[in-house]
């Protein structure tokens, strides 16, 4: 697999975000093993220190746990915890800006819901 990294954030951070997205999407479920540092380093052509750093972030956030001698596993409740923090982040950071924009454009709830339903029935 080939991956392009953007140059605005450290790569370990982007790797961490990638694992988080996989947990949120349910691709990685609780109790699933993460590939070894070596494996990820080889696959993505990253130095092992970068990969370890990304994993350490996930451990610090308690999304992943280290099992001695076995490797890294997605913690129980990781997805729920992520959902909570992602919702919280959306409500405090993104929603106020989005809300201000909707107000500026005079879009009411009715119109938005109709559009969303139309889009939903198409997909």
């Amino acid at each position, binding site marked *: 697999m080939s991956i392009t*990294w953007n*140059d*605005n954030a*450290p*790569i370990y951070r982007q790797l961490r975000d990638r694992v988080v997205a996989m947990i949120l999407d349910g691709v990685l479920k609780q109790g699933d093993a993460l590939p070894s540092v*070596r*494996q990820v*380093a*080889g*696959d*993505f*052509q*990253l*130095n*092992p*220190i*970068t990969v370890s750093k990304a994993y350490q972030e996930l451990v610090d956030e308690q999304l992943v746990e280290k099992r001695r001698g076995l490797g890294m596993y997605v913690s129980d409740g990781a997805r729920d915890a992520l959902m909570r923090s992602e919702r919280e982040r959306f409500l405090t950071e993104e929603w106020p800006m989005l809300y201000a924009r909707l107000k500026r454009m005079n879009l009411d709830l009715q119109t938005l819901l109709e559009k969303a339903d139309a889009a939903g029935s198409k997909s």
Partner: protein
Amino acid sequence: MSDAIVTARGLSKRYGTTVALDNVDLNIQAGRIVGLVGPNGAGKTTALKAILGLAEFDGEMNVLGLDPRKHRNELMQQVCFIADVAVLPRWITVEEVVDFVGGVHPRFSREKCLAFLAKTKMKNTQRVRELSKGMIVQLHLALVMAIDAKLLVLDEPTLGLDILYRKEFYQSLLNDYFDEQKTIIVTTHQIEEIEHILTDLLFIRDGKIVLDATMDQISDRFAEVMVNPDKNEVARALKPIYERQIFGKSIFLFDGIDHARLAELGELHKPSVADLFVATMKGTYA
């Protein structure tokens, strides 16, 4: 600094009147993957040869606690080397090479080597002259990966290989060879392909080390900013090390300027190693 694998002080080397290495200091720690990068003729291969005890030099050098000039035999048991020139005789078969290395190197594992070769398309009875360039590099790699060495030195290991072989080469190294007890020093011109593999970067120019930093230090030190023309003068006053133009806007590369201050000029980006290289080496051939 007890973990130092290579330390050099005042390393110098002349070929006649040409200075190949000019008072170079090196300090390479265990568990690192160090990229030694420089234009052709900058002194990369000479530096590697000095580390391996393959060339005479002036100055102090300590590799794995040994002086490469005095203890070459002991040193050779702990280091491994892929040269940019293929050195295998063309008549030898894969099998014979494996036997030979098994016979001369005490830390060589025949099983490991054969296991790696089994993953390639090479047959043990094939002669080196029947192998493609990519396969010859795979053979070299199989040999060195089967040697339990503390230091692996790679001089342009992927020169002339297609991208599939190049990727596979580094993938094998990272998957099956490298760990925190090992150290790799690598030179390459395909720097953009391995910049994320490296933990440390050394730039060499005209025999001098002009940059010696960890990759983390590099992202702290260097930043690229695309600046609107009205702020060009402000940017230039901060003494950028490089300036280039894209779509009528200037992109400045700064070394050691506070990132918060630069953010006022425009959006910050982390420069690629290739950008840094161009900026550092400008005027080399002029």
